[in-house]
């Protein structure tokens, strides 16, 4: 049996997993469960294991929307226009032919549209899809407040 990797290293590895895999990893052992459900981890990865938490819902939606761009509608219904909008986008690293999930938090505050990008190298993969999502959100935002 190999020694368990240091928690800090394990966290680095787990952070690179898509949410579905990450949730599976919570039942690997107790220490992984504590790690993934820790506040620190959740704030980095924007997920929650608590079903009452909006983050849980969005991680579930992500699963259903595998390899497609999710409709923003359920998210709007859930949070309303005034609050945080989480938008999950699936894209592929065509160069590496690995499908990967990109999690992009779109935060609307006032009329300012801010794109919060988690630790991943998301900027490189800002695809056409992503631009369409942003335009859509801006459009909806404008029509709602005018």
């Amino acid at each position, binding site marked *: *049996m*190999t*020694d*368990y*990797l*240091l928690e*800090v*290293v394990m966290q*680095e*590895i*787990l952070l*690179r*997993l*898509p*949410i*579905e*895999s990450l*949730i*599976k*990893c*919570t*039942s*690997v*052992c*107790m220490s*992984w*469960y504590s790690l993934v459900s820790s506040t620190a981890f959740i704030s980095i990865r924007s997920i929650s*294991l608590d*079903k009452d938490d909006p983050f849980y819902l969005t991680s*579930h939606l992500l*699963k259903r929307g595998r390899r497609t761009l999710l409709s923003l509608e359920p998210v709007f219904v859930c949070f309303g226009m005034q609050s945080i909008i989480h938008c999950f986008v699936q894209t592929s690293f065509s160069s590496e032919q*690995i499908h990967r999930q990109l999690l992009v938090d779109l935060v609307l505050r006032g009329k300012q549209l801010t794109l919060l990008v988690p630790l991943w190298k998301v900027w490189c993969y800002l695809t056409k899809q992503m631009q369409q999502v942003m335009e859509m959100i801006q459009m909806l935002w404008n029509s709602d407040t005018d």
Partner: protein
Amino acid sequence: MSSSTDSPTLTTETTQLSPQPDTETAKPTKKITLKSSDNQIFEVEESVAMEFATVKSFFEDSPSTDTVPLPNVTAKPLSQVIEFCKEQIKFKANPDEAQKKKYNAEFVTEKSDKDLVDMIPVANYLEIKDLLDVLNQAVADRIENKSVEYVRSFFGIDNDFTAEEEAALRREHAWAYEGVDED
């Protein structure tokens, strides 16, 4: 385009990686001796050793030492880590992002699961950030969407949940357990 298709050079120099007897042969560049926990001696060029932040600070603290003991590091992962760093030095001297990416990808592809997992604490201890990034990503790729049982055996982790606890967890987030990749 065509010139970049050569595979990274991993040829003659790798012979130096094997543990060597404790005798010093005169070389033009300064060598640093690293001693693994299983008492294997590695002679590496100073430039390579300075890639290891831990070794570097060891030398800054005690410049007169000639051998750096690495009590947490065994010979096999250490030799692989040295191999990686030697190549990175070449890329530093001769930046070629495409080749570097290719080398890094091949470096992890050819390693067994155990080799990767064993190298991670070494890269972490020696504070080689680039390597740690490469290894973490490689391990994440190998366990992505695998079954819980597969992940446990990958890392050699014992299941410390009771059957009831585990069943409850799986029930609670059942959607995440639908469909896993073949082992």
